[in-house]
């Protein structure tokens, strides 16, 4: 898919995310992205949609999301590379890995690389929202503990 299909929104004032957390969705499957957007757009400010690993890293740096959903299998390096680089370059972002297969060994590797939680494809909007909010809170606590 071309880079033209990536969506982005300009970074906003820091006060914005106190009310609505900023969310980046990275998945090369446009159906999955569209469904996640429809499920989450009431609870989150969706600041970007990346279709590959390079786009995910770029958008994370430019949009500074509170939380990023990262698919395991994406072109240009996959979720593992995206997680490593976002974790290093944008430490404020809580990274949540997304997969259709919970037994996928890559999921564990991504969690070890800096993702804070795991989402299974097929969860309800309520479940997704709960996990994403909990991940943001846990990540913030972890950052505060490290700081």
């Amino acid at each position: 898919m071309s880079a033209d299909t990536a969506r982005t929104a300009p970074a906003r004032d820091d006060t914005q995310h106190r009310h609505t957390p900023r969310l980046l969705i990275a998945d090369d499957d446009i159906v999955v992205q569209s469904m996640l957007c429809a499920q989450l757009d009431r609870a989150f400010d969706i600041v970007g949609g990346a279709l590959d690993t390079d786009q995910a890293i770029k958008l994370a740096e430019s949009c500074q999301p509170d939380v990023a959903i990262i698919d395991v299998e994406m072109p240009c390096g996959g979720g593992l590379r995206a997680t490593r680089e976002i974790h290093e370059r944008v430490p404020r972002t809580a990274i949540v890995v997304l997969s259709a297969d919970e037994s996928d060994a890559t999921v564990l590797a991504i969690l070890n690389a800096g993702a804070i939680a795991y989402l299974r494809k097929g969860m309800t909007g309520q479940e997704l929202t709960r996990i994403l909010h909990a991940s943001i809170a846990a990540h913030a606590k972890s950052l505060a503990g490290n700081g």
Partner: protein
Amino acid sequence: MLAEICDGNAELRQRLVTMFLDQARSDITALAAALAASDADGVRTTAHALKGSSAVIGAKRLSAVAGRICDTVATYRLTDAFPHQAELELVYELTAAALLSNDPTEVIS
């Protein structure tokens, strides 16, 4: 799943269903081509993608069949996936019919 997401928005439902069915059809065609070419990685990647998109839209049966193809390719010989390919075609048709008819049961399980 779809009903929860669309919350009565028929236009959104139509858009998502069309997008999903077009992509799933394309995935099934690609999977058949990969099987014919003995391309195990192509079969696994395509089946994995279909498993995920089907799960997200709530097409549980289609997702399960795609998942079986992933597991078969990972565990057994590539040719063992052929019976699942026929099942995939059938379940896709059932899924498409249910989604397009706005069946409240949404197929699918």
